[in-house]
């Protein structure tokens, strides 16, 4: 029903051309109908006739590059017919859209393109519309080589005109998955630290990530702070993130702990904090997406089939560095061990001479700073908007859990698994289900290892 509606749709009434030097309307003047036969390759000498009603308006024959053009007297509806006789024997006219276009509406001044496709006999496939889950494999077979066949006037970018082979896609998506996974991990490491140390499910973490990204934006763009370089702005953001974490601990969580408030209540408080933070950021920065003004649109570094922008490469390297550094800190330094000790048993840690409040403060500071850093990386690789962290929150939790709570490298391993599964799932499944796969894999892994990938089973009796 919708189909039919569309075919009768293009009844054009008036056309007003506003900008005289329109980018498309290069050759000003009369209306034409034109086209290019280039499927499966350019074919010369095919006759195309244009009618208005029953009256023939003109005929054209395709040139060496398959192009044809018929001038028409003015706006209106035309019928365009491809002369099947003129088609060379090795081709037939493709069923879609067939040899004839009815009711082609031409607007004033329009050079309207009409497409005819040929096909080799026997190769004719019914519909060409790609279903989401099979990304145009046929297109690859159909157009094995472009090269000399590419006519001028048709913009074709290098490297994109033919479908990428499956293997290459796998490699590309793997790289994408790693980079995505590391961004998740770096944003989540703070969560893991705080979750690990205080056993608190901090739902405000996503918004702390957003906060970091927004602070970097505030300082690096716009007139407010005279455009400091992004690197500096990122450092400022990390400091502010750390301060935010410290402030929350000092003035919220610590008093709550003093009052013996249970963890689950704290979780509700964290929802409250998240609501406040998120909506204040919305009020302050508006609902639009922004981007940093540095390191955008970079030339790709191509290593064989894989292309990576320097930006992404830097993020990958820095993320790995920071993640390993944090893990090493937790595992080997005194304060790191103290953090784990506090995570295990606050009272006992206190009894060992550890200033539990101070350690918790460090954890929140570190967690806040790292979440801000994650926010900057995330904003750099994607964009900055008020819900960015919130949208990432579930994946961050998934990463932390999947890796195994309380393990130093847990967030990293979990993040990588989540990132890779999300990206690679798009090879076979619709992109809209990307997150579903990432979350499903977490459940599947926990089915096999209920303690997470790196986690350890606890002793029962």
């Amino acid at each position, binding site marked *: 029903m919708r189909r039919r509606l569309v075919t009768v749709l293009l009844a054009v009434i008036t056309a007003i051309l506003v900008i005289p030097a329109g980018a498309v309307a290069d050759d000003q003047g009369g209306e034409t109908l034109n086209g290019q036969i280039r499927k499966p390759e350019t074919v010369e000498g095919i006759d195309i006739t244009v009618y208005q009603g029953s009256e023939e308006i003109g005929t054209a024959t395709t040139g060496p590059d398959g192009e044809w053009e018929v001038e028409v007297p003015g706006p209106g509806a035309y019928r365009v017919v491809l002369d099947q006789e003129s088609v060379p024997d090795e081709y037939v006219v493709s069923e879609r859209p067939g040899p004839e276009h009815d009711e082609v509406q031409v607007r004033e001044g329009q050079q309207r393109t009409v497409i005819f496709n040929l096909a080799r006999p026997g190769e004719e496939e019914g519909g060409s519309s790609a279903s*989401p889950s099979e990304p145009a494999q046929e297109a690859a077979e159909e157009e094995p080589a472009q090269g000399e066949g590419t006519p001028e006037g048709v913009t074709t970018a290098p490297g994109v005109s033919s479908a990428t082979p499956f293997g290459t896609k796998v490699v590309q998506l793997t790289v994408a998955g790693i980079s995505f996974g590391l961004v998740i991990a770096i944003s989540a490491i703070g969560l893991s630290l705080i*979750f690990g140390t205080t*056993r608190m*499910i901090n*739902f405000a973490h996503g918004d702390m990530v957003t906060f970091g990204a927004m602070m970097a934006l505030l300082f690096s763009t716009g007139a407010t702070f005279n455009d400091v370089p992004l690197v500096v702005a990122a450092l400022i953001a990390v400091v502010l993130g750390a301060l935010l974490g410290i402030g929350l601990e000092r003035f*919220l969580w610590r*008093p*709550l702990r003093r*009052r*013996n*408030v*249970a963890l*689950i*209540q*704290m*979780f*509700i*408080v964290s*929802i*409250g*904090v*998240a*609501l*406040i*933070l*998120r*909506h*204040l950021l*919305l*009020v302050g920065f508006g*609902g639009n997406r922004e981007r940093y003004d540095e390191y955008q649109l970079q030339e790709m570094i191509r290593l064989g089939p894989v292309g990576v922008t320097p930006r992404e490469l830097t993020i990958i390297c820095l993320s790995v560095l920071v993640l390993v550094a944090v893990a090493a800190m937790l595992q080997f330094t005194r304060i790191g061990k103290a953090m784990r000790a506090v995570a295990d048993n606050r009272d006992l840690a206190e009894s060992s001479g550890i200033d539990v409040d101070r350690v918790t403060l460090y954890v929140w500071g570190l967690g806040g700073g790292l979440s801000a850093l994650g926010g900057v990386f995330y904003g750099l690789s994607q964009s900055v908007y008020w819900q960015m962290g919130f949208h990432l929150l*579930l994946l961050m*939790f*998934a990463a932390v*859990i999947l890796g195994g*709570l309380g393990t130093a490298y847990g967030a990293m391993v979990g993040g990588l698994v989540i990132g890779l599964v999300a990206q690679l799932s798009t090879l076979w499944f*619709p992109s*809209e*289900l990307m*997150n*579903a796969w990432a*979350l*499903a894999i*977490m*459940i*599947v892994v*926990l*089915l096999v290892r*209920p*303690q*997470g990938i790196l986690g350890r089973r606890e002793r*029962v*009796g």
Partner: protein
Amino acid sequence: MDFMYILSSAFETAIGPIAAIYALAAIGLNLHFGYTGLLNFGQVGFMLVGAYGVAVSVTTFGLPLWAGFAVSVACAVVLALLLGIPTLRLRADYLSICTIAVAEVARLLYRASFAQEVTGGVYGLQRFAGDFYDANPFPPGDYGVGDISFSARDLWLMTVLWGLVALACLVMWLLIHSPWGRVIKGIREDEEAVRSLGKNVFVYKMQSLVLGGVFGALAGAMIAINQQTITPDQFMPQVTFYLWAMLLLGGAGRTLGPVLGAVVMWFLLTVFDELLRSLSSTGILPFLQGSDVGALRHAMVGLTLLLLIVYRPQGIIGNRKEMLVNVK
């Protein structure tokens, strides 16, 4: 600014159909968390299957409305089993994230384009509750006292909904004050200990998950009835967070806790909304832009949640002693 108006409109919301729906879902959550100790953050998943149970049965398969409710309940049972089998043996914090994940996966599946034939995909489904409103015994018109008034439609909805809530509370009360409830509460404290006494912990947890899920599904079904239209995207994880807030606000582990929580929460939501809106329209807060009101209202809700927990951590009718024991 008209305070009476603000209060009465907040009161209308607080006892209105939406609050009742949330109360119902929160009762289910109370069984899960308050009594069994399951950190279920995926309650919205049950609401989703409940809502779609009704909508799909009626719209896509042309079944009568009551059959839709049966399908809702059945879907909730199936979801509970699917959710429970892999996750019920997990640690509490792991379970919590897994349940959000399952609910989120369910939402993504219901909205996926391949499911469009059945679920309407991102467009959702509309118009399936005619039968319900046809059965409305109240003649059209407005009913109410003073400033508070409800249409016949809402009154009918509220009768059914609060009836359901009362029934759910009764069921919960009976269950919890029985040996069954004792086992459930025991599991909340230490499932290994309960297991060592010869109780099949998994079965109990599953029963709790199913029953609480069914309450959630009924709430979902009533959402569908109330709105006459549902889309998957209204079942985002935030809904569960709000349910949690209501539960803890009222007092977890109390029969009436979730109901009270839902009523108070919606009251507050509306009060802030109205208050901010009338402040901004009277120009008392000049820095407020039109579009900021919504945002600030959410921020205010956040602040209130925070303050309530700070000053009454056990919830409005919660047991502080129980809470303290829990901590140390």
